[in-house]
């Protein structure tokens, strides 16, 4: 194994992990507040990919990127309002079924609107620039993904820990009823959580799809599940944990594929999940939760 091979694979892993981390943040924040797996999050991420395909045909890339982010936010909050909000007092299983239903709907809708054939993702020239260092070749987006992820995480951690809004979010995730008594508008906080999750999913989708070139209706479902697993590994509800989990899952996937066991690359993520749930159910960075009766 040469050094350049090692570095090239490491870069592959970091760029995949970066995209996973951004999506995982969305899962972890929603789970932190609503205690539900937003099964549709991966499909929102897929839809965001399609938004870019269509946005780029009518506007330059520097307008298209914010437009795609706004579109994704609208979609995400719409889903929250229509499919999750009415079920706030319903049993957890109903909410979960509703989330699966939205995921099913988005996939079928994408299949109907954009056909099952994969569509090529636009090449944003500024992201596609290729660097060559000796025998290592990387595109700018590959380098950018982990860096951008870390910057965004830092911003988000500051937001959650240092601002009033962040305090309200933390209060909601601890105890919604008490938070409401304290005058926090819980519904608004939930909406903001979805806005943040969707913004990161949209950025993640630009990084992920620019590197992978095509979007198809099912390109969100498996990455979505993996990112949830990433969030669990890092400690659900914990933002740096989700990022750590994202990188772990991404790098593991590259290592397993590179060593010739690609058959098990998806399966391994779930094996990892089951192991973590038994060895350290609260994840690497999560707080120990007390089982509420």
């Amino acid at each position: 194994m040469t050094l350049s091979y090692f570095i090239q694979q490491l870069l592959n892993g970091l760029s995949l992990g970066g995209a996973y981390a951004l999506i995982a943040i969305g899962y972890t924040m929603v789970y932190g507040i609503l205690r539900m797996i937003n099964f549709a999050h991966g499909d929102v991420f897929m839809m965001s990919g399609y938004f870019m395909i269509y946005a780029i045909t009518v506007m330059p890339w520097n307008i298209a990127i914010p437009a795609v982010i706004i579109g994704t936010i609208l979609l995400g909050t719409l889903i929250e309002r229509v499919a999750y909000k009415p079920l706030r007092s319903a049993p957890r299983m109903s909410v979960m079924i509703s989330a699966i239903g939205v995921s099913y709907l988005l996939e079928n809708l994408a299949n109907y609107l954009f056909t099952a054939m994969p569509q090529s993702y636009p090449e944003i020239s500024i992201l596609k620039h290729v660097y060559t260092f000796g025998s290592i070749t990387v595109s700018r987006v590959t380098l950018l993904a982990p860096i951008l992820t870390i910057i965004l995480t830092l911003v988000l951690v500051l937001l959650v820990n240092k601002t009033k809004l962040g305090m309200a979010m933390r209060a909601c995730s601890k105890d919604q009823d008490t938070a409401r008594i304290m005058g926090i508008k819980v519904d608004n906080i939930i909406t903001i959580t979805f806005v943040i999750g969707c913004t990161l999913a949209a950025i993640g989708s630009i990084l992920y799809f620019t590197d992978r070139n095509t979007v198809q209706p099912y390109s969100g479902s498996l990455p979505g599940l993996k990112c949830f697993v990433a969030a669990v590994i890092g400690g659900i509800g914990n933002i740096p944990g989700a990022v750590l989990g994202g990188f772990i899952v991404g790098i593991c996937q590259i290592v397993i594929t590179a060593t010739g066991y690609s058959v098990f690359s998806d399966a391994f993520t779930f094996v990892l999940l089951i192991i973590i749930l038994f060895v350290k159910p609260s994840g690497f960075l999560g707080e120990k939760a007390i089982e509420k009766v």
Partner: protein
Amino acid sequence: MTKKKIDIKKTLPKVLMIVLVALYLSYLQADPMSHSYAITIIERSCIYSVAAVSLNLIIGFTGQFSLGTAGFMCIGAYITGIVTIDPAMKSQIFYLYGIQPWLENIKLPLLAALLVSGLICAAIAFLIGWPVLRLKSDYLAIATLGFSEIIRALFGWDGLGTVTNASYGVSNIPSFSSLYECVIICVLCIIIMALLINSSYGRAFKAVRDDDVAAEAMGINLFKTKQLSFVISSAFAGIAGGLLAVFMRSAVTSTFTVALTYNILLMVILGGIGSISGSILGAFLVTGSQEWLRFLDREYTFGSLFPMLSNTSIGGFNVPFLRNGFRMVIFSILLMVVVLFWNHGITGSKEITFDRIAGFTKKLIKHKEGNAHE
């Protein structure tokens, strides 16, 4: 003990319905060639009914959100396939990897094969249930979903090629000897599950679902009850998988994706969580309507649908929305409507009985009469 009186009023419709169904089936079976389309729809619906009831057993009756159905169906399908294929065909089918010598000469009749599939699935469920069932709702869902993906990867792995034929899958599985065979096996499976649900075990399942703390206080062993339900549900999922393999005459991992689990979940939810008859109805409705709603996937011009328009200017336009994939969009919207506005499904958690149908028609007639008098 007093002898039970047979209430003719109550028994008659049941007998009548069984006779009617039997007559209809024998009418189809009399000329299977020309009725093959109807026969496949019935067979497919029956098989999915078994899968849906088994999923309902764990989700609806025990309250454990397990999404591993496709994985267990995959195991059942492969086992049934491998042991029912004609030994003479095996070397042809496994031409790439060869076949394990101990498998080569096994040939079991269908019933025995299904039983073996069910037992093996039960054993596997017992093993994985031990760690997995300690998880709470969301985690359980994702862990079982993961299990199902792991199974799929394992069966497609060429390291197991001599057993599963890796990505080629198993083909040339002998089909049902007749429609009756399929229907009777499915009905038997459902009856067994229904008896179980109505037994004391079933009541324990429901107790765990409704309030696990109270159930534990009443002396129900939570974990054992969950495990029993999971093992039985998985065994029947395996049998359903075996039946599906016989129906398709082949078993390939690409059939048993997460989408299959979601599809069965859709049947359970549409029919009503916690209702056996609801799941059966859901299975028939989803399978049947996927056939009749096919027109939604085709493009039509207004002219071809309404002949009187064919010469007008509208006649040449395509009817809006009707395009490939529209059918599934309608299905998913329907699912969302049921989840959001009608979360008990068609039947609610109650069963459809003749009394309820009779009571309902009576009320309907009264209601109409009432209207007429006004």
